[in-house]
């Protein structure tokens, strides 16, 4: 049975997360490398104040996820496939040995900086529950306008969909969700309208920045955010990393694909637990576990056990 590593995105960060990393040789090496590249003390990144910055939150997530993923691999507990939600895909690419940590840090820092800069105010994201993609798309098409555009941003589950764009449009959307039969429409605590074409300029800049970076074919199947497809070569991984910020994240498709490819153990790397709940709901036949708070050797043993159960 195959094992999938899931890498959480922004929203999963919490205070003190870098102070709770597994104590093993690979951790020290990773932290030292990160400090050198960012030229700052890693342990300052996870204070409540520091994490308010998009740049810091994204970097802290990247580092935490890579540290934990490497700790598992050093125990011989490897995944068959990896996938990250939004910024989580950078850690996924590092763990799949497609992207160097140093390049990942540089790109994620730039990504965060651009996101903070381009949309200082007037935009946001809304999470809708109880309506399916067809229904949400119809509402979005009805409401969006040139002055206040909104877009389908994430399809996290068949009835958990995030829309991003201009606040004026999002407010109209929230009013209509109830009438259309939805159960909830909630503003997310983010100022950036992620995963829509408003962020095309950021994707273009990331594309330029990534021009000098060489990627390798991923060691494990890398599942793309944008297409929900298995990506097996460096060119497609690169394309997914630089462009996912400006496209709908098809997370439900991505994890369904993993299930269809044989994943029966979904492991969400720290500090997240949201992706675990999504996977547990969508795939009752599989096991979904959040690693946060668990010992590495325990999780590693579980992974090795799944690799021995080679039924699929």
């Amino acid at each position: 049975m195959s094992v999938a590593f899931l890498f959480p995105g922004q929203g999963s960060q919490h205070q003190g997360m870098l102070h709770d990393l597994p104590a093993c040789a690979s951790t020290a090496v990773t932290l030292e490398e990160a400090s050198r590249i960012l030229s700052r003390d890693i342990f300052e990144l996870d204070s409540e104040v520091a994490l308010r910055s998009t740049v810091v939150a994204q970097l802290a997530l990247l580092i935490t996820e890579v540290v934990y993923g490497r700790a598992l691999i050093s125990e011989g507990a490897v995944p068959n496939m990896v996938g990250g939600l939004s910024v989580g895909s950078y850690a996924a690419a590092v763990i799949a040995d497609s992207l160097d940590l140093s390049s990942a840090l540089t790109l994620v820092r730039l990504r965060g900086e651009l996101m903070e800069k381009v949309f200082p105010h007037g935009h946001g994201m809304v999470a809708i529950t109880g309506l399916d993609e067809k229904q949400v798309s119809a509402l979005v098409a009805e409401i969006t306008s040139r002055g206040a555009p909104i877009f389908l941003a994430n399809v996290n589950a068949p009835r958990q969909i995030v829309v991003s764009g201009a606040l004026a449009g999002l407010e109209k959307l929230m009013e209509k969700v109830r009438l259309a039969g939805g159960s909830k429409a909630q503003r997310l605590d983010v100022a950036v309208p992620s995963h829509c074409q408003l962020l095309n300029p950021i994707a273009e800049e990331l594309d330029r920045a990534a021009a000098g970076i060489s990627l390798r074919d991923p060691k494990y199947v890398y599942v793309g955010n944008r297409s929900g497809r298995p990506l097996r070569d460096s060119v497609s991984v690169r394309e997914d990393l630089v462009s996912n910020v400006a496209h709908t994240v098809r997370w439900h498709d991505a994890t369904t694909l993993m299930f269809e490819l044989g994943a029966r153990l979904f492991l969400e790397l720290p500090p997240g637990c949201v992706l675990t709940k999504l996977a547990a709901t969508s795939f009752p036949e599989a096991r979904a576990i959040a690693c946060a708070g668990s010992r590495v050797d325990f999780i590693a043993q579980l992974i090795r056990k799944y690799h021995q159960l080679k039924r699929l």
Partner: protein
Amino acid sequence: MRNGRLPKGAHLRSSWSTRRQKKAERIAAARNFADGQILAQETIVQALETLVLPGDRVAIEGNNQKQADFLSRALAQADSQKLHDLHLLISSVSRPEHLDLFEHGIARKIDFAYAGPQSLRMAQLLEDRRLEIGAIHTYVELYARMFIDLIPNVALVCAAQGDRQGNLFTGPNTEDTPTIVEAAGFSSGIVIAQVNEIVDELPRVDIPGSWVDYVVKADRPFAIEPLFTRDPRHIHEVNILMAMMVIRGIYERHGVLSLNHGVGFDTAAIELLLPTYAGSLGLKGKICRHWALNPHPTLIPAIETGWVESVHCFGSELGMEEYLAARSDLFFTGRDGSLRSNRVLAQLAGQYGIDLFIGSTLQMDGDANSSTVTLGRLAGFGGAPNMGHDPHGRRHASPAWLSLIKGNSDVARGKKLVVQMLETYQKGGVPAFVESLDAVKVGRDAGMPIAPIMIYGDDVTHVVTEEGVAYLYKAIDLGERRSALAAIAGVTPVGLRHDPKRTEKLRRDGLVAFPEDLGIHPVEAKRSLLAAKSIEDLVAWSGGLYKPPARFRSW
């Protein structure tokens, strides 16, 4: 071509046995991988690269139960430089490597019946133009085509045991093997069977060795899923209410003696109400005596209490083997004592031999067309549509079949009962009755010639929801049919169309029955009516002969 002369330029074919000759060439080329009829496990990939040629039509045995997975995994490891453009025939695309074959460029085209477990990848590969679909069939149609215009060049099948002469023993899971082997084996195709073990003496011969070219011992026993086991713990009171309405309003009313049940908690509830609720109505011997059915563990209490006279099975069910062997009066068994199943024959029996098909669905439109297809997925059909229709070629009569005759024409014929069960709302508050089926959009998006409808409304004779029963076959026109369906569709978009006055008339005329019209009080629909409330209870009913797979054991 006047006066028996050939047109100018025509010439006679020089050989009429080219297929046989080509087969001989392939077998000669593969001699290094074989010892007589036994292929070596270690070199199976090279053997397949030699025996299969680019462009071949390859039937891979795989249904919703057993899978020739050693051979499909081996084929997916082939070098796509050597092996490409294969046209696969797979009844159920259930395994990751079935579609890896397309990702790796080994296969190009597929004809299939069901792809539920790989339905997203199927849709993606189609969209990315890495896969072409010949057609989405029902099981029987796909096998029918294997004898007409989709004759396989190679068949990859599985069995429990084989001997050095190529004889195969399938055990209880005979299923599709004889059909696929026949289609390839008698048309100069190459038949390769993976077996769990090679033995000197087989318990019985399910496939004679002269139909089989090669046997190979698999690295592990063939994959198999317990697909027909439903844990009675998950049957809730709405399932029970609907089951009571089916028993009173359909089985008793029409005297249904022979039938097929789809798989699901609705039909499991019916099975578990036979010894209790139906027994209290004095229906034993009057309904449900003959079955075309997989060995559902939930049928055990009805069997043990003497309701069931015969069961013919499509396949077996994991854990039921010993129980079936010990009930050979009811089940088809071989000389060795174990079950003999056969999917095509059971499908044929389920079309022509029975009074009624009943199954659950997820989505139904106002005309009673139904489908379980959802957006962005290409899941196909499986076997339900084969039995969920009225076979117009039927000539023999039975009381239930005759009871559906309308009017008094001299040449009237009866009708098979095709019953659909669904709750008006699915989990998560999604209405089950809709204006337009998702299947319509899926069909359009995928460029399919027709929408993937599971059961056509004009075949459906009865619909049962928690609100009541609609006797659609009685409707005199489409308008009356729609009204009868709307009357039991609750507060869904279809149900909201109903006119209360018209509904009262439909009840008087017998086109609609609410629970009270059938003498059922919804408060009576309790779990205490179930003959077994858990898997443990089923094991106890079987006297310990049923051995449920680990995933169903909670004790």
